């Protein structure tokens, strides 16, 4: 099951030696919560898997996520799985800074080892982190791309935001990234609105990698794509995750995506984490009734 820092400390003190030094998590989240509506303590009671709802019977508030713990290390991909409304995308948006969390700590450490409490940063500082440290690939390309701007221009966006002021260098970096994500270079000057769904996602991925982020957040990156197109995008992401040292969080309701991309996974239901484990363990030996139900449904 997922271990808290406390548990990890206990583990470290146990007589058994740890095979690897305790990892420097890129992101360590403790007690993350997001409530829409009345954010008082009163809203929590009566919500969660044991009550079968995320809506507070006391206040009517929606407890979209509560008590969520997760860690992700450099070079590792963590899956977050659950049905729509389980809170998985809420968790992602809170980490991305698209919306403020109601509760919890988020400790972020970049490639260079400098550490920030994401939950304590101002909206401005959070946006700045999104330029170079934390990237998101959204299910809806319209959220991640400017549709009437060319593929190259979309990739140029985070580069110029990071202070790139040399046209030639911006252009060659954009070319390199689009090549890497298998976008035909002949189309790099075409507005992305003319692109197919799969190609838009490839441009979004290229953009997300522009400034070598430490943390990559993927929100249902292949949902809505045709199966064969989705497979191609998944292949690409798997390769990129293997080749870079980025830490990734993959949110999906689709086990095949989670299986292809992640090594560990957490399962969410009604805003709570009900199970955490190695991805193959969760698929082969799910413990929680809800996980078993999800796996059974996925296995058809």
């Amino acid at each position, binding site marked *: 099951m997922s271990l808290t820092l406390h548990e990890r400390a206990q583990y470290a003190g146990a007589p058994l030696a740890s095979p690897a030094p305790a990892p420097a998590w890129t992101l360590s989240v403790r007690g993350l919560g997001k409530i829409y509506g009345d954010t008082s303590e009163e809203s929590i009671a009566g919500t969660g898997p044991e009550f079968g709802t995320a809506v507070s019977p006391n206040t009517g508030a929606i407890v979209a996520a509560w008590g969520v713990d997760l860690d992700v290390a450099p070079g590792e991909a963590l899956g977050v799985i659950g049905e729509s409304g389980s809170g998985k995308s809420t968790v992602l948006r809170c980490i991305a800074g698209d919306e403020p969390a109601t509760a919890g700590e988020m400790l972020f450490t970049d490639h260079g080892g400098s550490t920030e409490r994401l939950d304590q940063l101002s909206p*401005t500082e959070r946006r700045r982190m999104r330029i170079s440290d934390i990237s998101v690939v959204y299910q809806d390309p319209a959220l991640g791309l400017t549709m009437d*701007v060319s593929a190259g*221009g979309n990739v*140029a966006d985070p580069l*110029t935001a990071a202070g790139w002021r040399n046209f030639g260098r*911006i252009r060659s970096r954009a070319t390199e990234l689009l090549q890497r994500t298998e976008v035909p270079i002949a189309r790099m000057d075409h507005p992305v609105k003319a692109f197919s769904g799969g190609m838009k996602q490839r441009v979004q991925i290229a953009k997300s990698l522009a400034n070598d982020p430490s943390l990559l957040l993927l929100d249902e990156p292949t949902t809505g794509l045709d199966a064969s197109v989705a497979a191609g995008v998944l292949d690409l992401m798997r390769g990129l995750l293997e080749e870079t040292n980025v830490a990734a969080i993959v949110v999906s309701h689709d086990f095949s995506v989670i299986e292809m991309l992640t090594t560990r996974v957490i399962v969410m239901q009604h805003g709570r984490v009900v199970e955490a484990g190695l991805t193959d363990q969760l698929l082969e030996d799910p413990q929680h009734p809800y996980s078993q139900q999800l796996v059974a449904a996925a296995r058809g």
Partner: protein
Amino acid sequence: MTTLSAELTERSVEQLAGDAAPRDIFDELSKRAVRRALLTAIAVPGYQVPFSSREMPVARGWGSGGLQATLALIGADDNVKVIDQGEDAGVNATNLRRLIVGNAGCGEETETGLADVIQSRHRIPEEPLKDGQTLVLQVPVPEPLRGVVGSMDEQRRMHAEGDYAKMWVRLYEDIVRNGVVSHSADYPCLVNGRYVIAPSPIPRFDVPKLNDSEALVVLSAGREKRIYAIPPHTRVEPLTFEDVPFTVEHTEGAACVFCGSDDTYLIGVPEEDGTTRWVCSDTDWCSRHRPDDDTETETEGEVSR
């Protein structure tokens, strides 16, 4: 001494001009409000300060913002020069000048060097501005981010955070599509290393004049109710990539047919035979630099008709 015909001509000109300009179009409290906004604008160079733009006897978008700024700044001892696209004699410039003179009781002037306040639509005079002068530019669209992002909230956020990435992307797109930055007028500039401004639709040719200017530059948009300023000796940099230098309009071999200048902003007039005649946009400057003009001492004695 006046002949009958001269008297008649004078009267018909007066009649043509219509009634005398309306007086007291701008009350002292409103002027003070504009001056307060202006003080903020000068204190925070390039920052667009909202102000309570009043109704003026000119349509919004026809210099109502510039008019309010000029009336708030000018005193009876000052001289005002008003130009429209470099021309003092344009109908719009003439009307605005009459309004200003009629209300402020100030003098009117066409010679750049002698004016205290110069209100202008879309040009900066050729004659370098001096310490103590104020240039008031009429601004139709003060927001440089309009057309880059739609939401005004987002525009404000981007200014607040100095986040101009989308503006750079637009320049990138421009170069990709057109090979050059195609902004011919209203070229986005970074003021004092902080705020990006729309310098009003002055040609690129005039943009370098904003940098380290001796004079105070006031930019006022009446319709949009925003006022901003470039105080004297402020850094103004046109946004440009390191490897794509900023260039100003220049046509090789073009020179003004009247004064012969080839280093001023020239307007091409197509001729029937397919050639182009070039003339100075700044008419006052041109008239003072003609070889046959007495005021141009350097060319005295070189008259050739």
